């Protein structure tokens, strides 16, 4: 199949990417601005023998996704702020039980019902810490429609590889805009499937780290090996335990399987940072405003660069630590009151002045606002 340029909406690219990645199950509940993802999944999944179901609520959707994944299907759900809050209970379940799944959150203005049709990036911390307890999570954020396609595939791949829920954190702008996209030949797409237990294993234990990589191989319900899955803290056999050592070992393994693989998981783009004195950190659609501002200011001779995060969690600590000492200022541009900026500040460890460019009125940060902020910060230095 030859690749062909076409106009595609962000939400549409998400479904195309999901199906290319192997999604064969979708459960969801209608919510703006993510609904097109459900609508397209309903249309496209049965054509490839997959299943779509509109559940009675967001909580149920997340439950159904986990259930389907336990039978071996790659499963996804999509939602927005209020629905994302409701899904958190079962996202925690998926984290603890290590059931791969993809959760798309098309962010809109909040809190509460907020601004249903307008963009925001107010769920950065909810994506990381929305469910209770210490838990692993991976969060990706696309800036372009083409990248929605690519990162949806990557979300499935990372989720399958590390047996962890993966969140695709979009925003209303990138979800609803239509943009020129050239889809790659499906045969060129790298697909990762979850590791299955070696058939030679006798008395399979679903949470034993057989390979020493922190990721237990995963059998499926219906494949012939009975096993138990519980949202309680469990030992390697999958059965509940309140033993302190077992608990510590489990939580440690869950976190380490992410933090030991940062180089594989964390992805970001550095633009014009080599000689930059001011570096702007951004993600999602906001990064496009920043990119324009960087181009415009470079034309005027300002030493300005940007880091565009494609992985938000785990955070790209290295990207901050690797910045040269020529950098004087870091600006974190995000459509919220200031969320990621705190993590950047912590990563900077006092090496750089860190300030936030924040907008939370339902409008995208404009290039002019970025430029004004840079000039303000430079004036201070």
């Amino acid at each position: 199949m030859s690749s062909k340029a076409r106009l595609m909406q962000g939400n549409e690219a998400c479904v195309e990417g999901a199906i290319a990645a192997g999604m064969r199950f979708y459960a969801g509940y209608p919510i703006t601005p993510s609904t097109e993802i459900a609508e397209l999944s309903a249309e496209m999944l049965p054509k490839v023998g997959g299943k779509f179901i509109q559940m009675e609520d967001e909580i149920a959707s997340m439950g159904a996704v986990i259930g389907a994944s336990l039978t071996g299907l790659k499963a996804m759900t999509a939602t927005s702020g209020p629905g994302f809050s409701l899904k958190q209970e079962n996202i925690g379940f998926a984290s603890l039980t290590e059931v791969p799944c993809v959760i798309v959150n098309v962010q809109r203005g909040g809190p509460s019902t907020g601004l249903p049709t307008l963009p925001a990036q107010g769920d950065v911390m909810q994506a990381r810490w929305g469910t209770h307890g210490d838990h692993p999570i991976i969060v990706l954020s696309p800036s372009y429609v083409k990248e929605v396609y690519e990162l949806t595939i990557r979300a499935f791949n990372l989720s399958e590889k590390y047996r962890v829920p993966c969140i695709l954190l979009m925003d209303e702008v990138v979800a609803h805009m239509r943009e020129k996209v050239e889809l790659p030949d499906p045969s060129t797409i790298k697909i990762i499937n979850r590791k299955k237990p070696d058939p030679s294993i006798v008395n399979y234990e679903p949470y034993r780290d057989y390979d020493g990589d922190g990721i237990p191989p995963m059998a499926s319900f219906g494949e012939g090996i009975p096993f138990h899955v519980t949202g309680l803290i469990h030992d390697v056999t999958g059965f509940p335990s309140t033993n302190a050592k077992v608990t510590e070992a489990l939580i440690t393994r869950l976190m380490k399987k992410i933090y030991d693989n940062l180089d594989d998981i964390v992805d970001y783009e550095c633009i014009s940072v080599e000689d930059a004195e001011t570096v702007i950190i951004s993600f999602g659609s906001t990064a496009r405003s920043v990119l324009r501002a960087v181009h415009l200011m470079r034309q005027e001779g300002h030493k300005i660069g940007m880091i565009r995060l494609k992985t938000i969690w785990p955070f790209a600590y290295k990207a901050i630590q690797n910045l040269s000492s020529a950098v004087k200022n870091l600006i974190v541009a995000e459509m919220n009151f200031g969320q990621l900026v705190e993590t950047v500040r912590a990563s900077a460890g006092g090496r750089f002045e860190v300030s936030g460019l924040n907008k939370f009125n339902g409008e995208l940060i404009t290039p002019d606002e970025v430029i004004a902020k840079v000039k303000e910060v430079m004036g201070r230095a």
Partner: protein
Amino acid sequence: MRKELEKYFRTEKLPHIWCPGCSHGILTGAVVRAIDNLKLDQKKICIVSGIGCSSRAPGYLNFYTLHTTHGRALAFATGIKLANPDLKVIVLTGDGDCAAIGGNHFIHAARRNIDITTIVFNNSIYGMTSGQYSPMTPKGSYATTAPYGNIDRNFDLCKLAQSAGATYVARGTVYHIPQLIKIIEKALQHKGFSLVDAVSICPTYFGRKNKMGSPVKMMEFIRDVSIPIKSAEKLSKEELAGKILIGEFYEEQAPEYTEEYAKVIEKSQEGD
């Protein structure tokens, strides 16, 4: 334990955590006996539960077992069944798990008529959290959160299931155990959403709070207030007050959800 039943249990996990006289053990045994009587393929059975005393049952059972979050068993089960319709999916839940926090999932699973058998271990109380009233606690009963008597009206889960669209609805009790096993067998053989409201006893919390005495006394109480549906038809509203109606309430053959979805798949691929 009877030898032929041992394969259905994770015997190394026994004795179970339930209190002396808790009839959840009787119900779990009834489920296993029904499966054994029907000679169902053990490797095709998935048992799902939510949270609470009832929901510990799957941990003792040697199938694909899933102990989910509070109230959500049917949501997970729906995903499993739709993803793999070859599996026989059984949900073991409690009265609080099913009718309160899981109420919405319950009515919608019934509405879809998805082929899942739901067995409610109905002991009228939240046992795991030590004795709060549930939507099935009879009005006037006592609970730790109803120290002056429960003013909530209780659900009739069978009526709820039937009006929501369940296609097999029955109620049994732990006293009338041979009949209950037959009911579970019928529920398991039924294609579509089947509900078994299994009246159970909680001597530790419901029993103590309501001064009902020993497990034996509670079993006697259930025996004495239970009436077969057929006999109930002749009784007045006053005569039926406080009675538990048992037997098969409803049975209907109706299109099943996963079979309907198989048709959707066919339709979507027409002309491809």
